[in-house]
């Protein structure tokens, strides 16, 4: 049963990822991205990270992809892009070759069973599964005790992001007045 869940969601994740990279229309790419994010959420559930799976669906599929689609529609850039022409000769084979080399480097420690090279020391913060506490309780206990300061820092980060978005998206004052006069003329 676990293998079936893993196989199906891994296939969804990979098909979605390839769809993002290869689709000519940005809207199709965004929809493929939703598939990938849902597959990742299923894999989170399969590894008993229930809270993160829910947050993944709400934040990524619910907010971030909608924001992408909103910007695509707002800017009117949903026309198909011609992928036949290679803008820089030999760039694509070089990119794929570089990617395969990187994949080989990533898979090497996994293939030899030496994933401690990637992960470091086991069990630093607290157990994730042993015991009877639910997942949310464990997360909250670690987040609001040991990681309280980083948690507060993220709130500052979000405020900075909001202010940055407002500053970036604001029109300069002169052009705004121009728009109003144009609108009033007829």
């Amino acid at each position, binding site marked *: 049963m676990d293998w079936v869940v893993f196989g199906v969601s891994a296939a969804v994740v990979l098909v979605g990822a390839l769809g993002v*990279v290869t689709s000519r229309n940005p809207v199709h790419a965004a929809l493929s991205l939703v598939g990938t994010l849902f597959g990742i959420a299923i894999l989170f559930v399969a590894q008993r990270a229930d809270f993160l799976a829910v947050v993944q669906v709400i934040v990524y599929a619910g907010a971030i992809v909608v*924001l992408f689609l909103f910007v695509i529609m707002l800017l009117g850039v949903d026309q198909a892009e011609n992928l036949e022409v290679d803008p820089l000769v030999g760039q694509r084979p070089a990119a794929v070759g570089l990617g395969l080399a990187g994949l080989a480097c990533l898979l090497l420690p996994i293939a030899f069973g030496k994933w401690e090279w*990637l*992960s470091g020391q086991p069990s630093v*913060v607290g157990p994730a599964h042993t015991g009877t506490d639910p997942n949310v309780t464990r997360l909250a206990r670690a987040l609001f005790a040991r990681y309280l300061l980083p948690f507060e820092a993220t709130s500052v*980060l*979000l405020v900075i992001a909001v202010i940055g978005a407002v500053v*970036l998206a604001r029109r300069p004052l002169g052009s705004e007045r121009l728009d109003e006069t144009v609108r009033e003329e007829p």
Partner: protein
Amino acid sequence: MTVPGAWYLTLASILFVVGAVGLLVRRNVLVMFMCVELMLNAVNLTFVTFARMLDDIGGQIVVFFVLVVAAAEVVVGLGIIVAIFRRRAGATADDISLLKG
């Protein structure tokens, strides 16, 4: 019958590489941004897998913070993209290589 963590790590590596190759290959700024999201998700999957393998909740805490940072990053990045497109419509990544207006 649980799936060994190595399978999840392999899937996450493949997902990360697909995202990285897409970032290098595509020229549409929005699609490049989506490829960054793919890479972030691959890393999130790795963290959750290690949280399971090492029985340590710290991996899931990191994923929580990555989610917050990704949300902030998308907001600011899309703001930048909107500002660029307002100046010149239909710009690709090749057209904005001058680092000046």
